[in-house]
């Protein structure tokens, strides 16, 4: 059976990103919904949050690890539910394209947003 990605790599990636997300995703929810009310999380909130390097790094890590975790997890779901190896490969290809587009979109627009906040200076 031809595998789309190595089982071992997928297992380790799923667990590592899962451990990261337990802190990153819950922390993100905590600051946007619990410690701050969601009505206050407008653009000025984002600008003040991204003035600290910690939160920029936090958001980049959150985005990438969430998408890696989603891809590795959904790959397992596809392995469980696909009827034959051909449809499995096709579904995984579509899924990887979708996740890659999301990753590029997220990182690109985050870079543009940071550029808009800080301008040309460093």
């Amino acid at each position, binding site marked *: 059976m031809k595998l789309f990605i190595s089982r071992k790599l997928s297992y380790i990636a799923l*667990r590592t990103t*899962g*451990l990261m*997300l*337990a802190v990153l*995703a*819950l922390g993100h*929810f905590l600051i946007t*919904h*619990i410690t701050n*009310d*969601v*009505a206050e*999380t*407008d*653009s000025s909130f*984002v600008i003040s949050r991204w003035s600290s390097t910690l939160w920029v790094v936090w958001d980049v890590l959150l*985005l990438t690890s*969430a*998408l890696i975790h*989603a891809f590795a*997890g*959904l790959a397992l*779901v596809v392995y*469980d*539910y696909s009827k034959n190896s051909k449809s499995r490969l096709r579904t995984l290809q579509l899924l990887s394209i*979708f996740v890659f587009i*999301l990753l590029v*979109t*997220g990182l690109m*627009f*985050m870079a*543009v*947003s940071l550029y*808009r906040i800080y301008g040309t200076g460093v």
Partner: protein
Amino acid sequence: MTTIQIGFLILLSLSFIIILGFIYKVWKVALFADGGPNPSFSRLAKLGRLPAERAEISRWAAYIHRVSGFAIFAFLSLHIIDVSTFAFSYAIYDNLHQIYSTWPMRLFECGLLFALVFHALNGLRLIFVDIFDVGIRKSNIALRILLIISIATTLGGSFIILQPVFI
């Protein structure tokens, strides 16, 4: 209601439909392919009993884990797109973001909180079970404890999230 808010709501409804379709798929496959007892309403009723050796609860945990993970990913896809408007214009971002503080969206956020907390804690339990080679009995006890923790966290969090609606 601006056009971009309507677009957001259409995409949100679309992701709800996709999540429902996924739940249907999980349900159908579980009925045929999983082996052992099928998930059904009579099984659901039996979950109220508490004999320690029953493994049925971990089967349900696996389904909830799968569905909650898929639902979080569906919302994440939408969230990446809606947050991307920040790069174009702060006004559009603020306008779109007002939806998040309406009461139906706050209810959705309470559900999202449960999905996140349950998925995180159950995932940590699975890693723990793998690494330390914990048996079914102890892992089921851990599952009950994390269920109680995630329900308590959701209730507490929902109180904070929904508070501005009632004031």
